[in-house]
């Protein structure tokens, strides 16, 4: 398994429309925040891993060069990793591998995006080749709506029930974001507000979908030796998992979704988790679309297939429920893609370390963080615990 690794702190920008700063300054804001929150300097850091969406998003290629100053990588080992929406999770995994291997003691990982500077859907569509898929899959909403439609048909979920369950999730998460100082969208919604908002790609309406956000997140990971010295309550990495589907969209079964189920199996096996809904105290699910979040609950074993809508409507996955999901508001309220999965890890770590402030889930000892990427084709997981 390798050496024990913990997250000893993190920093986030104020996410949203950050037309007040250039991109390097935005990245620096997260790095400064992480250093301030941990009381460390760059001299304490052995190396840096950085990632974001493909360069076309902001029109500057190889952004790890552009951010050499902001990331303080000059003179240090560094690496870039880019796996679309799962970038943040890949960053956390890469930092984990560096330390678990015994070759580094303290690593900083940083993810960022400045979505307002580009056209997000036009850029995302370049993830598909132009011979075939690019003509049809209308950006991210198109891909995921296709998946949701297949799911409701497979389990005979009445569209009204799915609609209500998704609306409840939207209302709850937007409410949760009000308690998160970093979150982008802060708005109080009713079920009718969600149900009656503009159709984007049926069944997704405006409030079922995440915003485009500018933002960055930096996390500092450490070996057991350093973590015990540098941090009062480290968040120990108990399990990780990552899995991908085929490229060709029509080849995969996106309902009995192999890459999601396989990724959680790797993480649960490593962490020794047999009954996730009972053993996890909080989950930060990567949830850019409300309906897909419900499907994820089923793939993650939080409930049986076809059951998620009923349980969501009962409040099982809301704050105060059996397994609170996304008390930070989640991706639904804040989505700077290159940072988003890393923000899930940061939020999960904050929960376990007791640092989540107004959106703290009391007594959280085991937290689940998730990243989702590509054409609905990558899932990455990290499980954090308060005990070594």
């Amino acid at each position: 398994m390798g050496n024990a690794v913990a997250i000893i702190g993190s920093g986030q920008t104020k996410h949203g429309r950050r037309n007040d700063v250039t991109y390097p300054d935005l990245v620096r804001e997260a790095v400064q925040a992480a250093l301030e929150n941990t009381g460390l300097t760059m001299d304490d850091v052995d190396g840096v891993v950085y990632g974001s969406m493909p360069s076309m998003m902001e029109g500057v290629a190889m952004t790890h060069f552009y951010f050499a100053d902001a990331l303080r990588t000059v003179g240090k080992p560094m690496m870039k990793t880019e796996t679309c929406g799962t970038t943040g999770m890949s960053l956390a995994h890469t930092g984990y591998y560096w330390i678990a291997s015994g070759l580094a003691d303290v690593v900083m990982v940083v993810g960022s995006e400045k979505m307002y500077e580009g056209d997000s859907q036009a850029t995302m569509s370049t993830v598909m080749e132009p011979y075939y898929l690019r003509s049809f899959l209308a950006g991210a909403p198109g891909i995921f709506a296709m998946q949701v439609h297949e799911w409701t048909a497979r389990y005979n979920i009445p569209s009204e029930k799915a609609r209500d369950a998704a609306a409840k999730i939207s209302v709850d998460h937007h409410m949760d974001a009000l308690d998160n100082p970093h979150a982008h969208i802060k708005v109080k919604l009713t079920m009718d507000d969600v149900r009656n908002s503009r159709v984007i790609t049926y069944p997704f309406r405006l409030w079922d979908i995440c915003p485009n956000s500018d933002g960055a997140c930096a996390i500092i990971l450490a070996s057991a030796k350093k973590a015990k010295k540098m941090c009062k309550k480290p968040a120990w990495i108990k399990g990780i998992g990552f899995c991908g589907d085929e490229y060709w969209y029509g080849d995969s079964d996106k309902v009995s979704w192999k890459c999601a189920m396989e990724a959680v199996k790797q993480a649960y096996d490593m962490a020794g988790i047999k009954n996730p809904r009972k053993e996890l105290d909080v989950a930060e699910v990567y949830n850019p679309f409300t309906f897909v979040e419900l499907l994820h609950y089923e793939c993650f074993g939080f409930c049986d297939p076809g059951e998620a809508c009923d349980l969501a409507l009962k409040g099982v996955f809301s704050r105060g429920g059996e397994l609170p999901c996304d008390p930070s508001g989640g991706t639904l309220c804040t989505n700077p893609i290159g940072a988003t999965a890393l923000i899930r890890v940061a939020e999960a770590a904050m929960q376990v370390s007791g640092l989540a402030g107004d959106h703290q889930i009391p007594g959280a000892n085991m937290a689940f963080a998730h990243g989702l990427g590509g054409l609905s084709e990558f899932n990455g997981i990290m499980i954090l615990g308060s005990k070594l």
Partner: protein
Amino acid sequence: MVTFDKDKKPIIKTEARITYELSLGPAWHRFFEGLKEEKILGTKCPKCNHVLVPPRSFCSHCFVDMEEWVTVSSEGVLVSWVLTDYEYFGMPTKPPFINSLIRLDGADCNFLHLVGGFEIKDLDAVRKHVKTGMRVQAVWRDEKKGGIMDIMYFKPI
């Protein structure tokens, strides 16, 4: 040159327009030639026997070369669909349109294309015509260019 956005913050507006010329390779080439003749071709894996459409040079599960070519039906079952009614910059297919996953008869994977043949007015009107599980049939363009849009759309039958 600096201009100002709706929040009166200074920005630089610019565009990247980059042209590419991608090699078709033998699989796409033969598939597109088939479309010109109103045939939808697939390849069959010698190991798992799955027929994949569009055809590939190798099976994505077994990782072996796929050399056996078959003609699949131009008809199939609608597995899933999406009504898209928003537009992003430079979108190749102009909305509104219905993109869909179709299991063509004879294929072992789903094929992505459009459903059409009726006015796409609003969601309720579309839901009268389009139902998951219904059979659909390819409708071809008169003038073919050897590309995926030589099929104009799939119509409900």
